């Protein structure tokens, strides 16, 4: 089997949500010492991108999207320890993500976190109902590039603004890009808060984070 054929097979395994096959191919790639970075980019990442497209097109739904991202993650857990030193898949960036204090809706935020991880970002998911101060503390600690704040309630959106205000207060406004998520968030709100962007869904969130980091 040529390397191209292996990449295609990996990509198809992810798109078909065939976990067993995707994992066997990861093991095979490690065993046969194929260029693992190529395997990730042309196989697994290509597959997860296609899963994302199918979701956007309404062919896939939440279970397929999440399953695809989880299979990808399990395969990465097999491959990454075998990457040769100096050839680590360079993390595309570090994202600290949370649902804001007072809001317990975590599903959208979890999907974004899972997809960002699958695409190659380092993600720290702090969960739901997280105070603005804590989100900022952890972003500092992890030297994050991006802070992602989700709010599903119009009543808790104000907490998203608090992040921006606190960063200004602490003179940290230039250190992080802050992006918003959640059903009620609009471009008007983002402008009003002076945030760096928002996304309507997980795939848009990936594009947004990539463009903010020039990746």
């Amino acid at each position, binding site marked *: 089997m040529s390397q191209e054929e292996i990449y295609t097979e990996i990509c198809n395994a992810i798109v078909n949500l065939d976990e067993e096959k995707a994992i066997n191919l990861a093991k095979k790639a490690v065993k046969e010492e194929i260029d693992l970075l190529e395997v990730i980019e042309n196989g697994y990442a290509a597959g997860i991108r296609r899963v994302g497209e199918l979701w956007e097109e309404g062919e896939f739904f*939440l279970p397929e999207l999440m399953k695809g991202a989880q299979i990808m993650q399990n395969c990465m857990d097999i491959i990454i320890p075998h990457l040769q030193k100096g050839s680590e898949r360079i993390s595309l960036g570090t994202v600290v993500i949370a649902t804001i204090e007072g809001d317990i809706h975590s599903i959208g935020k979890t*999907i974004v976190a899972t997809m960002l991880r699958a695409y190659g970002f380092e993600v720290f998911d702090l969960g739901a109902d997280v105070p603005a101060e804590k989100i900022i503390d952890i972003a500092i600690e992890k030297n994050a590039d991006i802070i992602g704040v989700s709010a599903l309630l119009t*009543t808790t959106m*104000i907490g998203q603004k608090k992040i921006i205000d606190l960063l200004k207060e602490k003179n940290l406004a230039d250190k992080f890009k802050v992006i918003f998520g959640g059903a009620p*968030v*609009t471009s008007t709100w983002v402008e*009003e808060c002076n945030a760096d962007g928002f996304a309507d869904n997980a795939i848009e969130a990936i594009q947004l984070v990539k463009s903010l980091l020039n990746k």
Partner: protein
Amino acid sequence: MLFNDWLEDNSKIILFNGAMGTELIKRGLPPGKIPDLMNIENPEMIIDIHKSYYKAGSDMCQTNSFGSTPMNLKRYNLEDQIEDIITKALENIRKVCPKDHLVVADIGPTGEFRPPVGSATLEQWHSSFSTQAKLLEKGVDLWHIETISDIEEMITAIKAIRGVSQKPIIASMTYQKTKRGFFTIMGDSLEKCIELLENEKVDVIGANCTIGSKEMVELFKIAVKLTNKPFSVKPNAGQPRIEGARTYYEQPIVEFTKDIYEMIQNGAKIVGGCCGTSPQTIKELRKIIDSI
């Protein structure tokens, strides 16, 4: 039983209530607070909303118990208060339910999904719905399981309720419109949901929330061809416009009621409203129903 009489009476269109959540927000529900807690903290506000719906012409209204499952309350650290919350929910609505009108138990989703999206199990769902249903049973006339996006969660709720009650069940899923038709976010098609709900022998099949009245008209045209069961529709008042931290449902009431009228003409048995609808909406619907 009154509800069954209504179902059997071909000339009867049952008028449900409108939204609870958006009415509470209008009245200043504080950020991040679960509406169900208001049964205890501000019963007057809840009573006032129920009263305004019955007065506007609703034949039946729902208890303020959408989120009162142990699984959902746990996320607010309120699971210990479930008995108080539901007892008060029943008291609040019973106080103002007029004679020959009904009290409907409102059952919403647990907020926890099955793998791979979340980590809930069928057993957890069943136990959670069962606890909620046991507490509501004594004070309600029928059940409305609503805003559910996983048909398995719906079936589990139906089974849990059947374990504690013989009363009628309305089972409303929430759909979004995709280019392949109406699906829940979990990927259950309208066709699949109707088939499975027929198998469960629920009394009424329904759809509520997510979509506005225009799309509900479209959904209902498809649904009516798929089932002979009575059907319930509770659409949102159009799509919300969000400005700053506030949400506005600006669809003119007359547009909403026109769409509901079309659904009644096409055979809808139970009509009402979800997010963004108000007692004023119900009042207008009452006029339309009475004029038919």
